[in-house]
């Protein structure tokens, strides 16, 4: 496995008697886009706030760039850009002034302000006070701020929250370009799988503060296969025959719904049915959408 940019070990955060985050082991490799998924209130933002040193973990350790966050906080934060929950800005200042307020602390050259404004296409609006901005523009300014310090790691908490489809598309393309064009590792959280699956290579799914799934998106997609469906001329008799061969199945909308089988098993079953004079109209794989799997993972806390 390549170098880990973020690694948490048994991370816990307790509020009162309730765990907001529990036994969380997050692993994010360099150069990847990591989708951090979970319903609202699952502990995503709490985790991100811990990663950024805004709150202290109750227990557990955080290593970023291989360094301990507690000891090397300043060095780590210098290389991290972030957007937490909703974009932060000073309404009475223009976009340029907002970036300048941050630039003075980051100590990067002034030309960087124009560069990041250009990346998020805000150059034209840069001289207006931010309080007149739309949510999408504020969000883009937030991302520009996050990019200002040439970060190696970008942490974006729900960056497309509240945006219209066009805005979502823009931000998604922007995030997707980060690892390729700038070599930046990205952690992006969302409560919508559909949003993350188009850009993330790896996903972590969190539910009630606990990580219930962490793997590549293609492995998640493999879980999506959910058996197959046969549409035949005489479903009743066909079902009888199938059960006679020891396979589980049931009638469903005039077809047969069967469990997942290997390719030779499917071929054999079809042959048997044909031999018994069943006309086979269709053999379909039942693919569950990632959204279904996501819901299943969230509701049950993992795969069965």
């Amino acid at each position, binding site marked *: 496995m390549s170098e880990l940019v973020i690694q948490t070990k048994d991370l816990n955060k307790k509020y009162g008697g309730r765990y907001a985050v529990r036994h969380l082991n997050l692993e994010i490799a360099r150069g990847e886009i990591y989708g951090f998924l979970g319903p609202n209130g699952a502990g995503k933002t709490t985790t991100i706030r811990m990663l950024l040193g*805004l709150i202290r973990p109750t227990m557990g350790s955080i290593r970023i760039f291989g360094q301990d966050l507690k000891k090397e906080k*300043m060095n780590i934060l210098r290389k991290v850009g972030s957007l*937490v929950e909703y974009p*932060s800005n*000073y*309404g*009475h200042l223009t976009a340029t002034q907002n970036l300048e307020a941050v630039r003075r602390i980051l100590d990067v050259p002034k030309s960087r302000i124009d560069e990041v404004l250009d990346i998020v296409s805000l150059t034209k609006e840069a001289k207006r006070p931010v309080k007149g901005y739309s949510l999408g523009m504020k969000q883009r300014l937030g991302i520009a701020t996050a990019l200002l*310090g040439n970060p190696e790691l970008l942490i974006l908490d729900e960056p497309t929250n509240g945006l219209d489809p066009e805005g979502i598309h823009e931000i998604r393309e922007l995030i997707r370009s980060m690892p390729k064009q700038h070599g930046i590792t990205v952690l992006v959280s969302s409560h919508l799988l559909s949003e993350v699956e188009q850009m993330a290579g790896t996903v972590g799914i969190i539910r009630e503060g606990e990580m219930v799934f962490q793997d590549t998106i293609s492995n998640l997609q493999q879980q999506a296969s959910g058996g197959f469906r046969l549409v035949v001329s005489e479903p009743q008799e066909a079902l009888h025959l199938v059960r006679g061969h020891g396979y589980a199945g049931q009638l469903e909308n005039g077809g047969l719904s069967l469990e997942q089988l290997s390719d030779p098993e499917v071929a054999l079953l079809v042959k048997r049915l044909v031999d018994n004079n069943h006309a086979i109209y269709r053999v379909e794989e039942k693919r569950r959408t990632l959204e279904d799997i996501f819901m299943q993972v969230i509701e049950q806390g993992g795969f069965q």
Partner: protein
Amino acid sequence: MGGYFKVLSSERLKMSRSFIVLLLLVSPAVAILIGLLSNVSQTAMPWTHLLLTMSMMHAMLFMPIMSGIFAAFICRYEHSGGGWKQLLVLPVSRTGVYFAKYTVVAVMLAITQLLLAGAVFLVGYIKGFHAPIEWEVMLRSLLGGWIACLPLAALQLAVSMMWSSFAAPLALNVTFTIPNILVANSSTYGPFYPWAQPLLATLPGSEMDGGGFGALNLPFENLMITVVGSFIVFFTFGWIYFRMKEV
């Protein structure tokens, strides 16, 4: 120290486009009005009397209240726009941020004092004073008044950081400031009431003319013990709180 000067520079930019500059002018403007309406020109020490007249309201009400307004103001844009998060994910220490914010409040108060000094000179000039300016009295009053405000500023900064509301810290501030009208005259409670210290430290007191009344008879040094004591308590409280604060 954790990016103190960088934060300070950033703070200056954030302040620059706000209307806080107008607030600086309120108290000196009121003082000018009071000064012009007063009748002090024919006394033996016209400058001292003019200062006394003009700084009464200023030191009793405006300075303590301004400490609260400045503190609340520099926390307001952080609370309202989610600025704390943005600021604290940058490579700066909490201590650096806290000290920088406090410095801004202290500097604003110092500017207010300088403006008041300017106001006194202006009124004196308009009234055509011929007596030489009593620099020592002026300096002692204005510097003392400023120092006496520092603990109040520390407390106000702490509560402004704690409460995201703009009004709550100000309400607290005014609640403690209004009793000044009574407390400052009490020789029993006056010396120990932090909010009364700016007035007590500003008014040219016993050392100058052997007169004065109530708590004003107390030596300067004693006031400083209350001031320094409350400063240490309030400042440390705010500092520790901010270091622990969950953002």
